[in-house]
C-alpha cells in the first residue's frame, strides 16, 4: 500500500476563460513528419563512436518527468562548426519532433558554429515546426538545454573551461535542470502558482524534494515583481 498521490484539487476555482488557450491539441504536418520520420537519431552508438571518437554528449530530463533527451555532437576543432548531431529522446511526439528539428537546424548547410548553436532558442525550433500546442512548449526547451549541455561538454573535453557557459542561475531541480532563473522567467510570464510553474517547466514532477524550494522562489519573485 502506498499513499494516494491525489491530494490537491486543480479545479473548482473561478478562473477566467482561456486557461487552455494555445494552438489546441493538433500537431502540424511538420511535427508529424519529424515524429514519424525522425532525422539524425542515434541508431548505433558504437558505429558513431568509431566515426567520431571526440563526440561530446549532453543529457537532460528523466523518464520520471516524462521527457529525457541525450545529444551527441561532433565538432570541427578548426571551424568550431557542428559537423554532426545525433540524439535520442524519451518523450511524446513534440519532444521527439523538437529534438529531430533541432538536429536539422544545427547541422543544415555547413553546420552551425558552437556560438551560433548556443544562440538557438526554443522559439526558433518551434517556429520551424510550425508551432506546438501550448502545453508542449517545454519539450522544445528541453532539447535546447541538452544541446547547450553537449556544447559545454565539448569545451570541457578540449580543456577550454573558460568557454563553458554555466546556465544563468542555480539549478533547483537536477532532473530537469531548471534554474532559479527559469522560475523567475515563468513568474514574469504570469505563472503565479506552483501548478502553473510546473505546467511550464515540469520542475519537481519527478523530483518532489525540490518543490518547497520552488514554492519559496515563486513567492520571492511574486513579491519582487508584483508586490503580492
Amino acid at each position, binding site marked *: 500500500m502506498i499513499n494516494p498521490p491525489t491530494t490537491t484539487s486543480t*479545479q473548482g476555482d473561478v478562473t477566467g476563460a482561456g486557461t487552455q488557450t494555445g494552438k489546441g491539441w493538433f500537431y502540424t504536418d511538420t511535427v508529424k513528419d519529424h515524429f514519424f520520420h525522425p532525422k539524425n537519431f542515434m541508431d548505433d552508438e558504437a558505429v558513431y563512436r568509431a566515426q567520431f571518437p571526440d563526440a561530446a554528449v549532453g543529457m537532460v530530463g528523466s523518464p*520520471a518527468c516524462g521527457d529525457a533527451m541525450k545529444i551527441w555532437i561532433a565538432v570541427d576543432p578548426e571551424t568550431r562548426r557542428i559537423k554532426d548531431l545525433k540524439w535520442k529522446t524519451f518523450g*511524446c511526439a513534440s519532444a521527439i519532433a523538437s529534438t529531430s528539428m533541432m538536429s536539422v537546424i544545427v547541422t543544415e548547410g555547413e553546420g552551425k558554429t558552437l556560438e551560433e548553436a548556443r544562440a538557438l532558442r526554443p522559439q526558433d525550433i518551434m517556429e520551424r515546426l510550425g508551432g506546438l500546442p501550448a*502545453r508542449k512548449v517545454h519539450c522544445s526547451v528541453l532539447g535546447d538545454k541538452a544541446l547547450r549541455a553537449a556544447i559545454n561538454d565539448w569545451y570541457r573535453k578540449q580543456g577550454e573551461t573558460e568557454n563553458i557557459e554555466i546556465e544563468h542561475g542555480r539549478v533547483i531541480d537536477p532532473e530537469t535542470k531548471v534554474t532559479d532563473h527559469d522560475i523567475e522567467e515563468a513568474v514574469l510570464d504570469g505563472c503565479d502558482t506552483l501548478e502553473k510553474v510546473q505546467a511550464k517547466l515540469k520542475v519537481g514532477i519527478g523530483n518532489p524534494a525540490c518543490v518547497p524550494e520552488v514554492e519559496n522562489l515563486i513567492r520571492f519573485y511574486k513579491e519582487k515583481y508584483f508586490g503580492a
Partner: protein
Amino acid sequence: MTKRLIYLDHASTTPTDPRVVEAMLPYFTETFGNPSSFHSVGMEAKKAVAEARKSIAQRLNAQEDAIIFTGGGTESNTLAIQGIVRAHRAAIAPAKPHVVTSAVEHHAVLEPLLALKKAGEIDLTIVPVDAFGMVSGKEVLAAVTDATILVTIMMANNEIGTIQPIADIGRGLLARRKERKTVYPYLHTDACQAAGFLSLDVEKTHVDLLTLNASKIYGPKGIGLLFVRRGVKVSPIMIGGGQERGIRSGTENVPGIIGFAKAFALVSEEREAESARLTVLRDRLVEGLLAIPKSRLNGHPTERLPNSANVSFLDIEGEAAVLYLDAEGIMASTGSACASTSLDPSHVILATGLSYEAAHGSIRFTLGHATTAEDVERVIAVMPGIVERLRRISPVNLDMKYFEKTTV
C-alpha cells in the same frame, strides 16, 4: 484495400448502436414535445420518458422514482457528492461532514470532493489501493467515522479495469448503520464503466446512489442518471422548473432518455454473452502484449472488466506509442502525462505503486462490440515494432525494478 480502423478505446466512449439511434429518431421531429406540457405531443413525450424510466429502473432492481436523469456521468457524480453533503450537513452538525473515497476514482468523483475539501465543507479520507488497483473493503470500513455521511467507491476502474468489492462494502456499511442506529454513511458508486459487464442490481450491491451514463454503453452522449434510493435526500445543483422530483430541473432530454433506455436494455440482454466473448479476446491481447520485453499488466489479473487491458512498456512514452498506433489505424489511449490535461501521469496507475517512469509508458486498450479476434491479432502483430522503434530512439534503458515500487 483501405486499412480497417480498429477502435480500442471503448472506455472513453462507445459508438451509438444503430438500434439506439433508430429508437431515438421519432423523438426529435415527431414526438418532440416537452413532457411538462399538457397537450398531446407533450403527453406522448411524458409517457415515453416514463416508460424509459421504468425499463431502466427494472434493470437496476430499483423504484422508478429513484431514477434521476442528468446530463451525464460527471453531473451525476457531482450531484451525488455535493447533493448528499449539502442535504445532510445540518443533520451531522456540529461535526463536519466526512467522506471516504478511493485513490483510483475518476476525476469526476475526486475533483468535486477535493473542491469541497478545499472550501472547508468536508473532511476527506482517500483510501489507498493495492498493487492491482483494488481497494480493501476492510480499509474502507475502517475509515468510516461517526461524521462520515458518504462513501463513494467506483464499481470498476476506467483506466485499469479493476473491479471493486462494492457489495462487500455495501454489506459492511449496512451492518454498521444497523448497529449504530444511523442512516449514515450512504454508499455511492460510479458504475459508468461497469454497466455493460456487471450486474448493477442495487439490492445486491446495497448502494444508495449509483451513477450511470449512456455514452459508455452504446447510447448517446449527454445523458446520464443518478439512482437515488427512496428516502435519501439530495440537494439539487440546478434549480428551476422542478423536473426529476426537483432534484434536477431542466426540460428532459427526451431523445437522450429514450436512447439511454434502449442502450441499457441492449447491453443488459447481451451482457453475459458479450462479457464471455470479450474476456477471451482480452486475455489473448494481454498474452500477446506481455510477450514484448519489459512490459507489465496494470490492474487486477482476474478481477477486471472483460474489455480492459492496460499494459506498461518501459523506456517509451505513452503518447508517442498511441500516435504510432493511430498511424496504423489502431485507436488506444494512455495514462501518460503528456496526453492528459495534468502534469502527472495517471493517478490510478501511480496509486497502484508503479513508478512515474513506468506510468508514462502505459497504454490502455478497451474492447467493444465491434472488436474481432483479427483486430486483436493485428494489435499483437503491430505493437512489438512500435515499441522497438520508440525504444531505438529512446536514451532510456530502465531496469525491470521500475515495475516494482515507486522510486520517488
